[in-house]
């Protein structure tokens, strides 16, 4: 990781807007991700999380708003910026007929600097599977491979879009420890998730978004504390204190989001 002024934010966006036809996906979002932190973007389905993260990743153009990533702007020096980012997308299905090590070698070839293929495979504990075809991997292994592809350049900033959706508890915890290790090496993470326990475990700060707007921001502990002040947990509740999930439901409502 390159040394830089500790106070420069890793991500800074102001007044982000994006609409698809009649649907407003992002409606004036301001975010700041500090260098070295793990920042969680929470929100129900259709809240605009993926649109937001893809704008920050430079894959989508916002209709309006200002985006600064690692002190650089999209459209000016994209390739230099991409050299320093690690990205995992929600729906990528990597080439099934390639072996694990071939995929990592391919992604490694796009970057000027970074660990060797073996080091990356050790990092995500896929070393024993290096000769396996991608199509033969389990869901958890595929996700670790996706993270491996995002770590091949030892990025300064890692974007993860629902990294543990659909994984079993062992795979989730495994991925968490992987991300903790990355952060201990000095990396910054911006992730989206549906899992409140994941946000509580991994994130220093979380932003709850709904309808493309920011509705709550703070550390998981701060958010829980503020909810407990406003609405103390019911005395008969089996759970002794509020959880981040209670905060989430209090902010985004109880109705189902099936879109």
């Amino acid at each position, binding site marked *: 990781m390159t040394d830089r002024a500790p106070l420069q934010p890793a991500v800074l966006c102001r007044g982000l807007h994006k609409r698809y036809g009649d649907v407003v996906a992002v409606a004036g979002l301001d975010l700041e991700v500090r260098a070295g932190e793990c920042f969680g973007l929470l929100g129900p389905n259709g809240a605009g999380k993926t649109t937001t993260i893809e704008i920050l990743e430079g894959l989508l153009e916002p209709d309006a708003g200002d985006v600064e990533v690692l002190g650089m702007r999209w459209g000016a020096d994209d390739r230099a910026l991409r050299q320093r980012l690690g990205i995992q997308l929600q729906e990528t299905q990597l080439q099934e007929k390639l072996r694990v090590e071939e995929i990592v070698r391919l992604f490694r070839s*796009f970057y000027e600097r970074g660990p060797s293929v073996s080091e990356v495979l050790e990092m995500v504990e896929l070393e024993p599977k290096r000769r396996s075809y991608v199509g033969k991997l389990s869901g958890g292994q595929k996700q670790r491979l996706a993270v491996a592809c995002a770590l091949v350049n030892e990025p300064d900033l890692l974007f993860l879009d629902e990294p543990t959706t659909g994984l079993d508890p062992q795979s989730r915890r495994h991925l968490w420890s992987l991300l903790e290790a990355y952060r201990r090496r000095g990396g910054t993470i911006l992730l989206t998730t549906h899992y409140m326990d994941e946000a509580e475990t991994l994130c220093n700060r979380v932003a709850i978004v709904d309808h493309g707007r920011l509705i709550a921001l703070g550390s998981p502990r701060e958010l829980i504390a503020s909810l407990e002040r406003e609405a103390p947990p019911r005395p008969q509740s089996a759970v002794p204190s509020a959880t981040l999930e209670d905060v989430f439901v209090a902010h985004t409502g109880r109705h189902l989001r099936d879109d």
Partner: protein
Amino acid sequence: MTRRERPTHPLIELTLARVLEFVREPEAVFWVVVFPLALALALGIAFRTKADEPVYAGVIDGAGASEIRTALTSAPGITVRVVARDRADAALRDGAVQVVVLPGSPPTYRYDATRPESRLARLAVDAALQRAAGRADVFTAGQQRLDVIGARYIDWLIPGLLGMNIMGTGMWSIGFSVVYARARKVLKRLAATPMARRDYLLAQMLARLVFLAVEAGGLLGFAALVFSVPVRGSLITLTVLLLVGASAFSGLGLLVASRPRTTEVASGWMNFVMLPMWVVSGVFFSSALFPEATQPLIHALPLTALNDALRAVMLDGASAAAIGHELAILGGWGVVSFGVALKVFRWR
């Protein structure tokens, strides 16, 4: 953490990835390598230079039929089949007989003027019957049969099949793999890396050229062994032509694949682009058969250029300079379609 310079150029890794993906797909290998050989064999056998095929003449039963049968049977090259009156037209239609003789004085020939073999059978039957009725030949002409290597139909056909293959596999293999990668969001993931987008498209073309060696080598070797189809021009000229031709169709394949999100849509466009060329570009029959006014258009098509140039090099031993015009047409198609594909390419 060790920091090293990038291990290999991304273009090489991308090409390698594509080649590996391809060879690990046994069905793809079948369609690119085995199927064209099987097609060439089948067509070669169907159109091989045959000993004189007899003409099949039907004779309708009735008064005078047996005299006509005797006359036709004793003539060389005519096989006689008796047909019932009400089955005559069906027998003609189905090709069981090529001409039907209605006995009478004089006899009547019933035949299908739209079929060359039917017209031929009418002439053969007429000659045999006239001769049996006492007409004498004024002279006997000398005969020269065209079964010289390089002048047979199979010699003309094989370069056309090769051209058609280069078009088909170039477009299908590139088109499908690109659209499939787009549908599975691999393209989007690649676009999120610092990979030069040009490298991805170039890698598809390069991988295609790797398969070309197997495909063209296989077909030409097979045609030389089984049908003695010659390659009279220099192998270097032929190689250059094949590379330029394959690049042209890879470029077209990339262009067709540059936007569609599903393989169904892509295959519709593929057929739209390729079908006219199958018909007019001289694969099975000469493109000279089409009206004069359409010739400039037909000759601007990449498959026409490739087929003409392949025939010139293989059969007439043309030099690289002699096929310069065709090479320029193919190169133009390749460069323009690659450029447009890169410009309009959909990465998400």
